Each structure stands twice: as structure tokens, then as C-alpha cells.
């Protein structure tokens, strides 16, 4: 059974003037189909305003579709009854680490989610310890979030979601406000969760380097899913990606330019090692 199943999802932002008349309608999602298997690492790419954040908020039932249906772990997000189940199944991590940490002590913030869903006190502590350890922040449990770096804050936010024991975590540009160091930290933590705990990850980003390890990539543009496939497949089509105003990873770009100059290099080179190996063969 798939963990996320979107069928013909439509979402429109309607802007009204003071009298309540419709001024303009902006279609953020236009008949989107999405299918995610449990345990997968999914990346959603797209330029600003492509609808990727809107899609993410649907998965967490923060937004409701205007048309179409979205099933999270078999539950319809449109049904009021399911809303807390859905939010527990699909946790969400936002862009700004400061604006999603609620408590003034790290461990209390991680305990916030379990408190909300009524977990008994002893179990809260077990969950807090487990999830803080899983992102490597256990040593900082008694710290104030204000004293942590951006990457550490974001890992605390991820631990806060993990403590609710979700099957799936949606990360909405979690690294956009971090320095390269923090970015690496967060991605390592996310990959580890995916591998060790089998949590389905949906990573929304516009940093191409972050998605080369994903199982599946979706590229969005103007509310549509325009490309879909493995990283190798997606990054083979540099021309197409450029059309959607997306950058390809630098190594892929280098390979692409070399190929254009006439070197026999295959498409979809993702890592430095791969390129080095192929070039070595060329030299021989």
C-alpha cells in the first residue's frame, strides 16, 4: 500500500477584495498525481512559486484540496475526523528553524508533539530520548534553542517530529536558511532516519546537490508535476531542467558541457567519483 496517494489534486489561492468579490485566482496545484511508497526517499524540486510548498502542506492536512483527493496512509485528508491522525502520520519540518521551536528548552520542545497527542509522561521521556539520539542532539537536551546553530535547531525540529513516531516526514526547504555546514548536518540526519528507522522522507528543496541520493525525484513547475524519475534520469535532461529554471549539480553540468564539446560521456553523471572514473577510462 502506498503511504501517499494524490489523485488529481487541485488547489487554488483566491484573492478577494474588500467586498468579498473574487479578484484573482491563482492555481497553485493543477491536477497533481503523486504516488509514494513507504520507506522511499522522495525529493520534490521546483522554482519559487511552483507549488511545491502548497503540495507539502496538503500532505500534513494544513491545506485542503479544492478538487481531487489525497490519501495519507489510506486516510482521506479532507475528512475532519482524520486530521490528527494524518498530522501524526506525516510530520512536517519547516524552513525557518526559529519559527517552529515552541519551548525554551530543547527537550521540552521535542516533548511538545507527544504531549499534544496525549502520550503518558514516562513514554514521552523515552520518545524524547530516542528521537534526540537519532539526530545526535541528546547532549544538548537541556540547552536553550537560542544558543544553538541553525543546523542544530533544524535537527531539534526534526527530533520534535520524530517523537510523534510518524511514518513519513515532509521537509519543506529545511536547509534554505542554513550555512553549508548546517545543511550537511541536517541532510545526514534525514538520510539516517530514512535508512535506520525506515521513515518515508519527502524533501522539498531547490538545492540540486541534496537530491542526488533520492529514490525518486519529482520536478514541479506552475502547479504541475513536469518530470518524474530517478536522479539519473532527471539529471540526464539538462536542457529540460534549464527550461524549468533549475540548476543541475555542478558535476552533472560539467559532464554535460564536456559532452557538448564532443567527449563521449554518458548522461546523468551525479557524483565526482563517477565522472573521474569515466574520464580515467577515456584517458586510457
Amino acid at each position, binding site marked *: 500500500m502506498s503511504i501517499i496517494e494524490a489523485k488529481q489534486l487541485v488547489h487554488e489561492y483566491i484573492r478577494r477584495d474588500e467586498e468579498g468579490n473574487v479578484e484573482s485566482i491563482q492555481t497553485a496545484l493543477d491536477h497533481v498525481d503523486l504516488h509514494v511508497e513507504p520507506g522511499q526517499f522522495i525529493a520534490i524540486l521546483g522554482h519559487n512559486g511552483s507549488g511545491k510548498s502548497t503540495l507539502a502542506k496538503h500532505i*500534513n492536512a*494544513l491545506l485542503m484540496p479544492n478538487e481531487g483527493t489525497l490519501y495519507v496512509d489510506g486516510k482521506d485528508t479532507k475528512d475532519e475526523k482524520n486530521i*490528527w491522525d494524518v*498530522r*501524526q502520520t506525516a*510530520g*512536517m519540518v*519547516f524552513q*525557518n528553524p*526559529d*519559527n*517552529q*521551536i*515552541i*519551548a*525554551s*528548552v530543547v*527537550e*521540552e520542545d521535542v*516533548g*511538545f*508533539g*507527544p*504531549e*499534544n*497527542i*496525549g*502520550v*503518558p*509522561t514516562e513514554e*514521552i*521521556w523515552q520518545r*524524547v530520548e530516542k528521537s534526540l539520539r537519532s539526530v545526535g542532539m541528546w547532549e544538548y537536551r537541556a540547552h536553550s*534553542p*537560542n544558543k544553538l546553530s541553525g543546523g542544530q535547531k533544524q535537527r531539534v525540529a526534526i527530533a*520534535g*517530529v520524530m517523537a*510523534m513516531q510518524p511514518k513519513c516526514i515532509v521537509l519543506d526547504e529545511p536547509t534554505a536558511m542554513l550555512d553549508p555546514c548546517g545543511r550537511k548536518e541536517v541532510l545526514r540526519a534525514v538520510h539516517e532516519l530514512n535508512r535506520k528507522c525506515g521513515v518515508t522522507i519527502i524533501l522539498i528543496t531547490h538545492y540540486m546537490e541534496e537530491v542526488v541520493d533520492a529514490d525518486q525525484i519529482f520536478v514541479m513547475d506552475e502547479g504541475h508535476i513536469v518530470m518524474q524519475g530517478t536522479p539519473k534520469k532527471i539529471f540526464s535532461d539538462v536542457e529540460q531542467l534549464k527550461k524549468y529554471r533549475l540548476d543541475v549539480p555542478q558535476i552533472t553540468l560539467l559532464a554535460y558541457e564536456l559532452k557538448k564539446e564532443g567527449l563521449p560521456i554518458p548522461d546523468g553523471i551525479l557524483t565526482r567519483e563517477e565522472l573521474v572514473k569515466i574520464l580515467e577510462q577515456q584517458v586510457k
Partner: protein
Amino acid sequence: MLKDITLGQYYPAKSVIHQLDPRVKLFGTMLFIISLFSFRGIPAFVLATIFLIWVIHISKVPFSYMVKGLKSIVVLMIITGLFNLFLTPGEVLVKFGIFKITYEGISSAVLMVVRLMYLIIGTSVMTLTTTPNQLTDGLEKALMPFSKIKLPVHEIAMMMSIALRFIPILIEETDKIMKAQMARGADFENGNLLKKAKAMVPLLVPLFVSAFRRANDLAMAMEARCYHGGSGRTKMKPLHYDKTDKIAYVTLISYFALMLVLRFVWVKYIV
């Protein structure tokens, strides 16, 4: 520059007072304040002094920290003292011009200043030994009975703790905006009061805008983590009374009883 402001002046130490339940400390502070404003006569004053010194001693917080709080109310103390000194009618001791100092004036001035001093020191004992979080937790639990009359106790406590979390962030943000405006030639330091107030406008507007945006983000993050008010919520750190808390209650109540005895019995029969 703004970063240096510390809020919630918690002094970390391991003492009996630190480990007390925040509700006990809230109740104790209240009782102490009431006792301050109802006592009369030297013996009650001596008792309050002894009690305060004893509590400070076992709290292991250096005395200098307690006195720091007094600095901010020095002006208030002087004004209160002077008003009481000159404006209390009674037996005239010294008289120059329209000003006269009466015997009653001196005693009430001294009394008021001492009361104010003890009030500040007494409440500092609480704020120095209790983290802001514990304080909010304590308030929430202590006010819980009022939720029956539709007082949104949980919401108030939640707002308080979120405010505490965001104060340092907003201070940092103010600092950032200020520097950005200064870099573009804004002047926050010179000019008269009106000019200074006007200079604050380009500071406050972006600050408010960003605060609202933060609030919006935070609300969404809280909802995403299944927050739906206080009902059905469990506590990660529930408050329990243990033996020390009970002893503290008994001590506090006996202190208060003694003060009452001194107030009524002493004043009536001995003086």
C-alpha cells in the same frame, strides 16, 4: 548591544528553594507580600527580616544578586520616602517654610521604604530560583480551578511561555533592523525626545511585520504537531508535591500565623 539584556534572572544553583514546586514559591511570595503590608510594630519587622534572611541563606543565591533588583526602584523609594516624610500630618518635629517633618512622617517613611525593599527582595528570591518555564507551569497548575469559570488558563500559560521563548529572538531582530537602518543613515541617538520617537517608526514597523509573520509560521508549526488546545494533553514534566513542598507550606503558614499574632495581639496588648 541589545543582546546583553537578560530576561528572567534565573540563578542556577542546587538548593532546597530551587527544588521546591513553583506553586509553593508563588504562594509563599504572595503570603510574604501580604504579611509585609499588614505588619505593624518592631517585632513583626524583626520577624520578617529574620525570615527573609533565612530564606536567602538557604537559597544559596549570593546576597548581591538580591540587592541588584533594588537599583531599579531607588527613585521610587526616594519619592515614596519623601512624600511620607513631609506630607504625613501629626506631631511636628522640625519645620522650615511650608515643609514640616512629623514624628509619624518619619516612622511611616521608614516603614514604606523598608516594605518596598523587602517586597523587591522577596520577589527576587522567587525569580532567581525559578526558571521562567517552571513559573508558567506553576501558574497554569495553580490557576487550573479557574478554568471552570471559563478562564482560558492553559492558553494564558501557553502565551506566556511562547512570549518568553520569542523575546530573545525579537531582541536580536530589533538589533539587526537597527543596524540595517543605521547603515542607511538612520539616527537613533541624537535629537530631542520627539525626534527620537520619530526615529523609532522605521524600526517598529518592520519589527511588527516580522513578528506577525513569525506568529503565523509558529501557529502553523504548532498545528502540524497536533496542537489543539489544552484538552487531552499530557505533561512531559508534571508537577508533584513531595515532602519538602509540604514542609515548606507548613513553614510558610506558621510564619504568616506568627505575623498575624504579632499584628493583632502585640499591637493591642503590649504597646
